[in-house]
């Protein structure tokens, strides 16, 4: 991930301001898609913060997201806690959980890391279901707030903007440079003096923090929450697909993946509901074979080639 400059930050700020006006100009159907899109933009960007430079594909997003949704549900349903307090607590718990997973997976890389994070997410889902069924009594939780879709949209926009800003700062810092070195060669990274463990855990913790926060914010949309629903493993795969489709090499690239994927997905899900998982598989194949560096990587490659031909 190359360090982004000030023009990119200004462009991103302008895009965020423009995006804030969406609820005023579209109908409810498109606003619903907008909420989905903003949710995935925040998730995919924070995912890419860690997985982009280190190339460790994490499938634990669903677990962090679920922790957020579940904590808001439990807090509001069983303890009458205010939404804001539970959202803040969720982000904090997500960060701690991510730090623990980060420490546990330090020595794993490649496919072992992928499988570990997937298995762990499933374990957390089952554990939460079990605790819920056996000790907390009720199966479902109610999240009742006055929030409408546009409020959730704006909250998610604020989270996505914060993720972007944080990534922008990190990528220009020593830590961001350290992650690029780690992504290329971890042995070299350690031998030039980088504390690879600390760098990876810090970034993974941020990913967990934001994914849980997003899960908490989206909870009011469902009103009724079940552990099996908020800990959906499908969400983890969606985030990976969207981030890879855009390209994990640039901070803003996942956004480029989120929008086309969601639009096609909505169409496929509506037209061929039984074949939607097939589409997910095809999308994975397509990315691996045709767009290994995503849309953005492909565009940059073509640009370089044209420059090469011109010069």
């Amino acid at each position, binding site marked *: 991930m190359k360090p982004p400059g000030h023009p990119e930050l200004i462009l991103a700020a302008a895009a965020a301001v423009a995006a804030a006006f969406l609820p005023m100009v579209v109908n409810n159907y498109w606003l619903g898609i907008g909420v989905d899109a903003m949710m995935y933009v925040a998730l995919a960007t924070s995912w890419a913060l860690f997985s982009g430079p280190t190339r460790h594909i994490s499938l634990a997003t669903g677990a962090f997201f679920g922790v957020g949704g579940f904590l808001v549900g439990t807090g509001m349903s069983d303890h009458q806690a205010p939404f804001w307090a539970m959202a803040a607590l969720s982000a904090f718990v997500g960060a701690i959980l991510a730090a623990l997973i980060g420490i546990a997976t330090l020595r794993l890389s490649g496919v072992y890391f992928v499988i570990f994070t997937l298995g762990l997410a499933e374990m957390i889902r089952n554990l939460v279901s079990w605790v819920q069924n056996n000790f907390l009594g009720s199966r479902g939780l109610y999240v009742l707030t006055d929030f409408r879709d546009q409020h959730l949209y704006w909250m998610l926009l604020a989270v996505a903007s914060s993720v972007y800003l944080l990534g922008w700062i990190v990528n220009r810092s*020593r830590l961001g*440079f*350290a992650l*690029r*070195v780690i*992504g*290329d*060669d971890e*042995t*070299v*990274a*350690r*031998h*030039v*003096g*980088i*504390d*690879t463990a600390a760098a990876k855990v810090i970034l993974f913790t941020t990913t967990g923090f934001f994914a849980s926060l997003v899960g908490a914010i989206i909870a009011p949309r469902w009103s009724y929450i079940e552990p099996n629903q908020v800990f959906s493993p499908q969400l983890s795969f969606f985030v990976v697909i969207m981030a890879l489709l855009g390209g994990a090499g640039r901070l803003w690239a996942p956004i480029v993946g989120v929008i086309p994927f969601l639009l096609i997905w909505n169409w496929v899900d509506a037209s061929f509901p039984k074949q939607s998982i097939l589409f997910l598989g095809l999308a994975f194949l397509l990315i691996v074979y045709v767009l290994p560096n995503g849309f953005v990587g492909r565009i940059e490659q073509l640009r370089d080639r044209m420059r090469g031909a011109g010069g």
Partner: protein
Amino acid sequence: MIRRRPALSVQGVTKRFGGLVAVNDVSFDVEKHEMVGVIGPNGSGKTTMMNLISGLHRPSAGRIGMKGRRLSDLPPQRIAREGVGRTFQLVRLLPGLSIVENVMAGAVFGHRRRWGRDAEDFARDMLDRVGMDARSDASVTSLTYIDQKRVELARVLAGEPEILLLDEWLAGLNPTELETGIDLVRALRDEGRTVVLVEHVMDAIRALCDRCVVMSAGRKIAEGEPGEVLSDREVIRAYLGDDGA
């Protein structure tokens, strides 16, 4: 009486990999401003010795110290920050980074830590120092082998290490490149750097080293000035077998 502390001291170091004893009770010191060669036939444990000093492996027994501080319990990143820099037997560059960024990696996180413009300028100085065009925006994967080695050396120098470990830095070079390579290492020596080098090229050992440590099957079998050591009967036997001696 004050005893002079060696820059690097290896004391009774052993490394076992399962049943294999790769390094067996080896001891030697390296004085400040000294260039010490570690030589020996293939599989004698030279590279393992380098890996033990740089922290890639942890010794099974023994102690490695630097100016009285113990290095052998530290992870590689801490050893690097203490001031030990190394190159790798098979060059390891960072393909996703530009040439200057590759060298900056050494400057930013190394023994003396720089950042921003300062790190970039220093990286360019180091590239100049090893005879590379510092303005080049070529990709590191398109470089010739000796240029890759130069960039790696520049990365190590950018960390301003107090002790430099060169693991077969001259291996794989053609005769012309070898001459350039030897000149480059000699220049490091003339700067008064403390260097430990593992090498197979005997001419280079004779030309460059103040002292040699000879290893065979994990043990140290001789130590001394290169001319003296290379004519030692046991060393010749280790290299050429009993018939040669």
